[in-house]
């Protein structure tokens, strides 16, 4: 039986010629036959490691093919983990190439070997999972905690194929698959929701001790039903357990220990140790604008607690979800978990920078809605200029209106309450028109500001030099007021103060809007 398995493997990888043969003779279900320990050595080159891994798989004796598809799925998962490990930078960088090679070589093979051959893979991966885990390095464990889930799902093959390069991403799919232990389970968002629910449930303060990544992965594993992340039991058991929410607690404890251990080993740059429940919460956070299976590098910079990032389908098993930009209320835990996007720097500084930049751009968008006429403007500098102009114009309007209001003598029937009610119920209270579009606003308000039913205010006293000024004022206020543009208004007040007679004559000359404006401007030029 061994020969059957060895040959196809050998045909796959050229570099693996020697080792598989040797290992075939080795103990079959040796706990160390799992290739993960081989990775840790990293004494050999990439090919060597991969060879040893494959050989370990191959060497195991054929077990009953109860988990046929599982094996291929498992292998793919492992390969994915390889890639993720390598990418995350914690494992040896070789694993990246390894994963590439593995994926290239094994995947097609696995796909083709869904038949009898898969049985050979089942045993090493299935049977001694516990032992394997114990021997795995802490770092690797953190990454591959999901390996525990390998045993569960026949549908893994599909998902593993999809997310070959994402170790963490596949977690979600796996966990979802655990509960419905049916055959080929295509990737469904609903199961993910369940798993996410589990995550939500388990994201309790008790998880505070967990590291960011570890917590999420562990949590997922727990949610998927693994009582102990380190222990793999029958997949059926897992699936049944995964349905139970309270399991989260067990898993939490287990994961706590594991994570605490892991976190010491996997100390990332920033102070993520202190990230309490944030990593867990982050596990539920929506990965930022990402549904596509781009390999996300989890960079737990700081934890931003947000319990509602469940909209998206996939969540990082490592528990780092990108900061959800749409969450204005910053929770008390001021850590923000950010995930680096594909092709972007994973440096903690750059990630923090990106978070900051995204916050700023989000706020700029809000401002864009508030400031009229900003839709066409793009770019931070121009937007800032527009905003500054708008704020300045608003302040100028306040000043002008206060001057206008001060010039209004106390109306005889001034009633605060009546004023208030009328204020509220006016259908279109004049919108503060910016200084710029004078013409449009003027025409718009011309009809609106017809003289009110209120009697004209008593002649302004102390403003005009002569009695005629008051008449001029009233006359002036009427037509000019209809214009509803502020420059002429300003000029009005100044006229009242300075030039009553001249104004009178000028006003009588032309009563149209435009002429008034023109005269106003001319007068302004004269007396400005």
């Amino acid at each position, binding site marked *: 039986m061994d020969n059957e398995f060895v040959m196809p493997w050998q045909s796959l990888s050229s570099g693996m010629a020697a080792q598989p043969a040797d290992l075939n003779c080795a103990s079959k279900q040796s706990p160390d036959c799992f290739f993960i320990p081989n990775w840790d050595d990293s004494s050999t080159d990439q090919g060597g490691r991969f060879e040893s891994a494959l050989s370990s798989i191959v060497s195991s004796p054929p077990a009953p093919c109860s988990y046929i598809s599982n094996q291929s799925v498992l292998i793919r998962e492992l390969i994915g983990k390889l890639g993720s490990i390598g990418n995350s930078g914690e494992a040896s960088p070789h694993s990246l190439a390894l994963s590439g090679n593995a994926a290239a070589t094994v995947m097609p093979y696995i796909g083709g070997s869904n038949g009898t051959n898969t049985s050979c893979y089942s045993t090493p991966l299935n049977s001694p999972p516990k032992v394997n885990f114990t021997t795995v390095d802490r770092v690797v464990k953190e990454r591959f905690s999901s390996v525990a889930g390998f045993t569960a799902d026949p549908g893994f093959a599909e998902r593993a194929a999809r997310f070959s390069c994402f170790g963490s991403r596949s977690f979600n799919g796996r966990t979802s698959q655990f509960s419905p232990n049916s055959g080929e389970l295509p990737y469904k968002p609903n199961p993910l929701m369940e798993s996410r629910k589990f995550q939500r449930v388990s994201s309790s303060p008790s998880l505070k001790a967990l590291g960011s990544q570890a917590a999420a992965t562990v949590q997922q594993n727990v949610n998927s039903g693994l009582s102990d992340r380190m222990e793999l039991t029958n997949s059926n058991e897992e699936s049944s357990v995964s349905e139970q929410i309270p399991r989260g607690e067990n898993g939490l404890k287990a994961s706590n220990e594991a994570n605490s251990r892991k976190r010491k080993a996997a100390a990332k740059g920033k102070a993520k140790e202190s990230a309490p429940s944030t990593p867990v919460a982050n596990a539920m956070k929506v990965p930022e604008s990402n549904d596509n299976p781009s390999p996300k590098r989890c960079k737990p910079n700081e934890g931003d607690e947000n319990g509602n990032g469940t909209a998206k389908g996939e969540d990082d098993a490592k528990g780092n979800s990108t900061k959800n930009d749409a969450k204005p209320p910053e929770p008390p835990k001021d850590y923000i978990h950010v995930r680096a996007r594909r092709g972007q720097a994973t440096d903690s500084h750059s990630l923090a920078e990106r978070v*900051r930049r995204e916050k700023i751009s989000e706020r700029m968008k809000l401002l864009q809605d508030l400031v009229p006429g900003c839709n066409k403007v793009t770019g931070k500098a121009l937007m800032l200029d527009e905003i500054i102009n708008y704020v300045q114009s608003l302040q100028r309007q306040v000043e002008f209106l206060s001057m206008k209001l001060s010039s209004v003598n106390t109306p005889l029937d001034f009633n605060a309450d009546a004023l208030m009610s009328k204020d509220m119920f006016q259908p279109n209270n004049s919108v503060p028109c910016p200084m710029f579009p004078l013409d449009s606003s003027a025409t718009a308000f011309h009809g609106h500001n017809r003289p009110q039913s209120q009697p004209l205010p008593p002649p302004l006293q102390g403003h005009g030099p002569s009695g005629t000024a008051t008449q001029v004022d009233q006359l002036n206020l009427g037509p000019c007021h209809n214009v509803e543009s502020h420059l002429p208004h300003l000029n009005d007040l100044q006229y009242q103060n300075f030039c009553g007679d001249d104004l009178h004559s000028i006003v009588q000359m032309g009563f149209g809007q435009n002429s008034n404006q023109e005269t106003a401007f001319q007068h302004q030029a004269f007396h400005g």
Partner: protein
Amino acid sequence: MAPEDPVTVSPPPPPPPPTPSLKTKIARRFVKSLAEVWTSRKLATEGGVRKRARRIKIAAYSSMARAVGGSRRAWSRALLAKLQGRAKRRCHLRSQRCLGLKRKRAGSRNMVRNEVSGSDKLRRLVPGGKAMDLCNLLEETSHFVQCLATQVKVMQSIADRYSV
């Protein structure tokens, strides 16, 4: 109700607005302070337009800051502090009459103007903006702009009603 008088049927009082919106709050406070200014005999007689305009402007800003709940927003806190500080300073200045101080400050401001950037300008415009990072500054700006626009609307409607 019982005696029907077609001529003098008093319209039912308008129902109060269901929820006190920002505009309502601002309008209420502003109208109160405006009434104060209008009915204050001291202001009406002396000084004239400018003093009253300044008082009304102060009233507008303080009503705006208070309507949002004085200390809830950074800009409202800074605004109220500035107004109170200015009031105190005005008293001191009036008593001491050191106008030279004002002129000096204006001069220094003119010299620096060319070098300011967009965000610095914004910081100067928004009360309390000097001590914030850009992110918070933008958030405060958006809220400030909202309230300022509402305040202008309120003032505009009042001005429309009382000035023909």
